[in-house]
């Protein structure tokens, strides 16, 4: 009797988890780029680490609002993955290298909300909406000497995210963009 009840229960649990896992963006095919890059960032944070990070940031920054804002931003997140590479010269990666990631983002559930493409560079922003809320967020920013992929799993307010710089979180040092064609 117990067995007959247990099997459907497990099946329902697995089925309910499966779509989320399938929709979770996996950044693959970029492993060889780190050795070519002059600077690279490889950040992977799961929900446990994000909870720890939120606790640490809230405790470390009690006196100003940044810690609380960051904590709020992190609270709804389940995972963050960032792969960022800066190269000395252009042509260190191919557009095809990004195809496995783009293929995942073409699957149902994901929609492209911002796309800016020129001959040399492209910026794409994708979101995944579940029950009217942003449940996933992805960025592909490909420039001649810089490549950044960001995958965020969980609910996030993009306006709050874009305000981070205004709140005093220092900006990352990016190469001089003067003279670059948009």
């Amino acid at each position: 009797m117990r067995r007959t009840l247990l099997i459907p229960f497990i099946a329902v649990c697995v089925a309910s988890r499966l779509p989320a896992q399938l929709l979770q963006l996996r950044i693959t095919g970029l492993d060889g780029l780190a050795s070519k890059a002059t600077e690279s960032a490889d950040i992977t944070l799961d929900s446990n680490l994000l909870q720890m990070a939120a606790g640490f940031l809230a405790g470390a920054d009690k006196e100003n609002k940044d810690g609380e804002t960051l904590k709020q931003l992190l609270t709804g997140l389940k995972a963050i993955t960032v792969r960022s590479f800066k190269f000395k010269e252009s042509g260190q990666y191919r557009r095809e290298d990004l195809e496995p990631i783009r293929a995942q983002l073409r699957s149902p559930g994901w929609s492209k909300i911002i796309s800016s493409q020129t001959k040399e560079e492209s910026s794409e922003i994708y979101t995944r909406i579940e029950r009217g809320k942003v449940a996933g967020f992805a960025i592909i920013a490909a420039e001649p000497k810089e490549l950044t992929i960001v995958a965020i799993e969980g609910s996030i307010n993009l306006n709050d995210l874009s305000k981070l710089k205004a709140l005093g979180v220092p900006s990352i040092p990016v190469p001089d963009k003067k003279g670059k064609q948009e």
Partner: protein
Amino acid sequence: MNLEDELRAALRREDPSLGFAKRVVARAKPSPQSNRPIFRMAWAVAIAAMLLIGLTATYEARQMKAERAGRDAVMALRIAADKLNNAREKVVRREN
């Protein structure tokens, strides 16, 4: 009396008094009542010290992990915010 006789007298074999062996054995045995509390206290202090060291090390390791996670999270969100704003700016410029 010459020296030889004196030595012989001094080193002559003598039987111990009655009950000597029992007294020696009794002295050699540790007194259980006097030593036990010290041993127990020493063990308790050692265990407490080990627990304290273990807990402190665990706490420190967790703090370091949280600190690193916090830095990584800020860095990740910073990169995401930067790229999001760049993409938005590009679209706004293109539309203007």
